[in-house]
C-alpha cells in the first residue's frame, strides 16, 4: 500500500479507514475496507479503479459523511476533507467544500424540476437571486439541458439525469468533486465534455470507476486501485493494464467462438414503427417521435443500439418488450404480429435501474418467484435451478438484495431473467458499474440457449468486445450502421 506524497494542503486525507456494514439477524458481515490510507493533494486529479462489488459507492458516501449516519455500520479511522475532520462537521456544512455525484443519479434528486434541482443547493448557500440565476443558466447551458429545465426527474433518461447532477455540481462550484461512475450513462459527446472539464478545471477530482475507459488516458495524475479492501497507488501509464488483470478483463472473452447454428432460429422484427415519448412538465421539447423503419434481431446474435442521451433508446426498448404500445407500426416474432402481453413473455427487458426489478427479501425468494408460477415444477427442481443460478452469478441465496451493492443487484436482475430463459433479451446499459468481463459473462449466461440479445450502451469499447451488428439513432431515426 502506498499513499501519495505529503503535500502542504491535501483535499483528502484518509487514514487507517476500516468499515463494515451493520449485520442483520445476527449476521456479522465482512469488512469492506481495512486500514485504508490514501490522500489527494489540492487540485489533484485522481482515478480510483475498483472491480464491482468492492465498495466504491460506500467509500463515496463515507467521504461526504453519509455513512454511518444514514447507513449504519462500524467506521474507524480518520478522514479530512479540505482540512475539515469529518467527525467534527455536519454533512450540510460540507456543501461548499465537497460535491458527490452518485452512481445512481435518480437517488440524488430532491427537487421537482431540473432547474429547481440545480438551484436547490444554491438556495441553501444563501446566494443572491441574481447570482443564482447566472450560475444556473451557465450550468444548464454547459451541460446541454437548457430545454429540459422544467422537466421532471421521471421524464429524463439516465444520461440526462447524470448531466443534471453534474450541472448542479458545476453551479455549486465546490473545490472538491467526488464522481461515482460519472462517465456511465453519458453518451460519447458528454463523456468527452466531462473529460475536458476534468482536464481543465482547477478543482480536485476523485473519480470512481469499475472500467478503464479510453477517455481516461492522460487525464489523471493519481491512479489508485481498490484491491483486497485496501487502496494502492499505481503508475498512471500502467493503470489500465494492472486494472485489467485485477478485474479479470484480460481473461478470454466469454462470448468468443460461440455458435448457435444448430438452434431453431427465431427473429424479432419491426416494420415502420413509430415510438412516441412525451415530457408533460417541460414547456419545450414536449414530445418526440422515433422512427424505426426496420429492425431485426435473430436468435443467437448480439446487436447493439447506440444513440445520444434522451434519443429514445429506452422508449424503443419498452415498445419492443410490449410494455408500451407504438404510435404506428407492428412488432413481430417470426413475421407474426404480436401484442404487448405476448411480447412481455418473449422479450426479457433488463431495466437500466435494477432496483425496479428486484424487490423480495432474499436472493432465494427473488430467484424462485417466477419459477413458482410455472406449472409442474416441483419444489426440489425449483431449489436445484435456483441454487445453480446463484452459483453461476456468484450470488448468496441468503443475502438481502436491498443491502447488496449496485453491481450485485444488477447481477441478480440478470439472474432472474436467466431463469426465465426468454428467446430475446434487451439489456439497457447492463455494463454500467460492471467490469467488462463481468458484463460479458452475464451476456454469455443469458445467451446459453441461443437467445437474441439487444444491448444498449454508450461504451464503444464494450461494443467492440461484444461484436455483432450495430443500430444507431440519429435525428429521431433508427438505422443500421
Amino acid at each position, binding site marked *: 500500500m502506498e499513499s501519495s506524497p505529503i503535500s502542504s494542503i491535501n483535499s483528502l486525507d484518509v487514514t487507517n479507514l476500516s468499515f463494515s456494514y451493520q449485520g442483520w439477524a445476527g449476521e456479522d458481515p465482512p469488512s469492506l475496507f481495512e486500514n485504508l490510507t490514501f490522500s489527494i493533494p489540492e487540485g489533484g486529479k485522481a482515478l480510483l479503479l475498483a472491480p464491482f462489488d468492492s465498495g466504491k459507492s460506500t467509500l463515496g458516501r463515507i467521504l461526504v459523511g453519509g455513512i454511518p449516519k444514514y447507513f449504519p455500520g462500524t467506521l474507524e479511522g480518520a478522514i479530512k476533507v479540505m482540512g475539515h475532520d469529518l467527525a467534527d462537521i455536519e*454533512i450540510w456544512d460540507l456543501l461548499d467544500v465537497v460535491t458527490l455525484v452518485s452512481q445512481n443519479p435518480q437517488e440524488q434528486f430532491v427537487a421537482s*424540476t431540473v432547474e429547481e434541482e440545480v438551484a436547490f443547493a444554491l438556495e441553501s448557500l444563501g446566494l443572491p437571486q441574481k447570482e443564482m440565476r447566472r450560475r444556473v443558466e451557465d450550468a444548464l447551458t454547459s451541460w446541454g439541458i437548457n430545454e429540459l429545465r*422544467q422537466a421532471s426527474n*421521471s421524464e429524463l433518461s439516465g444520461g440526462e439525469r447524470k448531466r443534471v447532477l453534474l450541472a448542479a455540481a458545476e453551479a455549486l462550484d465546490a473545490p472538491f468533486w467526488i464522481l461515482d461512475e460519472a462517465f456511465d450513462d453519458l453518451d460519447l459527446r458528454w463523456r468527452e465534455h466531462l473529460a475536458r472539464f476534468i482536464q481543465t478545471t482547477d478543482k480536485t477530482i476523485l473519480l470512481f470507476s469499475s472500467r478503464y475507459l479510453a477517455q481516461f488516458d492522460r487525464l489523471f495524475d493519481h491512479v489508485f486501485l481498490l484491491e483486497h479492501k485496501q487502496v494502492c497507488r499505481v503508475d498512471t501509464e500502467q493503470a489500465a493494464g494492472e486494472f485489467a488483470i485485477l478485474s479479470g478483463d484480460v481473461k478470454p472473452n466469454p462470448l468468443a467462438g460461440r455458435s448457435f447454428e444448430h438452434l431453431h432460429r427465431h427473429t424479432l422484427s419491426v416494420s415502420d414503427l413509430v415510438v412516441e415519448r412525451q415530457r408533460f412538465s417541460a414547456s419545450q421539447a414536449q414530445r418526440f417521435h422515433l422512427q424505426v423503419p426496420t429492425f431485426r434481431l435473430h436468435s443467437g446474435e448480439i446487436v447493439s443500439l447506440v444513440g445520444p442521451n434522451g434519443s429514445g433508446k429506452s422508449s424503443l426498448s419498452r415498445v419492443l418488450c410490449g410494455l408500451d404500445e407504438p404510435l404506428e407500426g407492428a412488432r413481430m416474432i417470426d413475421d407474426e404480429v404480436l401484442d404487448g402481453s405476448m411480447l412481455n413473455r418473449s422479450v426479457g427487458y433488463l431495466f437500466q435501474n435494477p432496483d425496479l426489478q428486484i424487490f423480495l427479501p432474499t436472493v432465494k425468494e427473488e430467484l424462485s418467484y*417466477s419459477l413458482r408460477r410455472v*406449472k409442474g415444477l416441483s419444489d426440489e427442481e425449483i431449489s436445484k435451478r435456483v441454487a445453480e443460478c446463484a452459483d453461476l452469478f456468484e450470488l448468496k441465496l441468503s443475502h438481502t438484495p*436491498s443491502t447488496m451493492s449496485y453491481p450485485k443487484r444488477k447481477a441478480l436482475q440478470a439472474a432472474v431473467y436467466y431463469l426465465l430463459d426468454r428467446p430475446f433479451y434487451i439489456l439497457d446499459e447492463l455494463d454500467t458499474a460492471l467490469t467488462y468481463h463481468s458484463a460479458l459473462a452475464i451476456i454469455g449466461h443469458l445467451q446459453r440457449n441461443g437467445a437474441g440479445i439487444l444491448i444498449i450502451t454508450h461504451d464503444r469499447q464494450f461494443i467492440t468486445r461484444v461484436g455483432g451488428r450495430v443500430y444507431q439513432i440519429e435525428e429521431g431515426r433508427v438505422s443500421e450502421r
Partner: protein
Amino acid sequence: MTMNTYLSNTGWLYRFDPRAKILLLVLLLGWLFLPITLTGLGCMLLVILFVALSNPGPRFVLSTFTSILPMIIFMVLFAPFNVRSGTGLITIRSFVLLTEEGALQALRLAIRFISITYLATLLFATTPMPEILLALQWYRLPYNASLIITLAFTYVPFIADGFARIEESHRLREAGMHVERKRIGKIRSLIPTLTSSLVLALRSIPTLALSLELRGYGRANKRTRYHDLSSYRRTFTDFLISGMVPVISFLVFKA
C-alpha cells in the same frame, strides 16, 4: 427520488396568482360542505371540469378520473344502502333495498369527492412546486413545514411511479405461456407488488435524507429564493375572484 406533478400548458389558471389559487382552493373545499343544493353541487363540478379541460387539458381530466374511479364505484355501490329511510326505489318483498334519499346521498358524496380531487390536483398541475412553496410561506407557514408539504406531494407520485414500474416488472416476469393465470392468482400477485412498493419507499428514506443534507438542507444560514412570485401582476384581481366565486355561488345555490 421526487416527481413533478406540474403539467406544462398556457391556460388562464396558469397565470392565476398561486397565493390566490390556494385561497380559492381552501374556500371551495369549505364550500362543498356547506348546505348547498344538489343542483349547485352539480354545477360546481361542471365548472371545475370545464376549468380542468381548458387548462391542463383532457388527458389530465381523464387520468385523474381513472385514478379515482375504483373509489367512486365503491362509493356509488355501497353508500346508498346506508340510508334506510325515505321513499323506496328498489324493494325485495317488504325489504327496502334502495331509497331515493340514499341514491341522492350517494350522488352528493360522489360529486363532493370528485370535486375535491380535481380541485387539489388542479393546484399542483397548474402551479410549479417552488411557487406553491413560496405561496405557503407567504401565508406565514414556516419554511420547513412548506418544504415537507411540497416534498410529500412530489414524493408520493414517485412512490406511485415505483408501483407502476414494479407492476411492469412483474408482467415481464410472468413465467411463460403455461403459467397459472387464475383470477385469484392475479389478486394474490398484488401482494408482492404492494410489498415491493413499500420496500422501495422505505429504502429511499435514508437516501433522500442524505441527498437533502448534501444539498445543504439543515445549514444555519438563511436560505434565499431562486424563484419569486413577482411575475404575477394581477394579484389583487385574483384574490378578489377567489373571494367572490365561493360567496356568490353560495348565495345562488344555498339550500
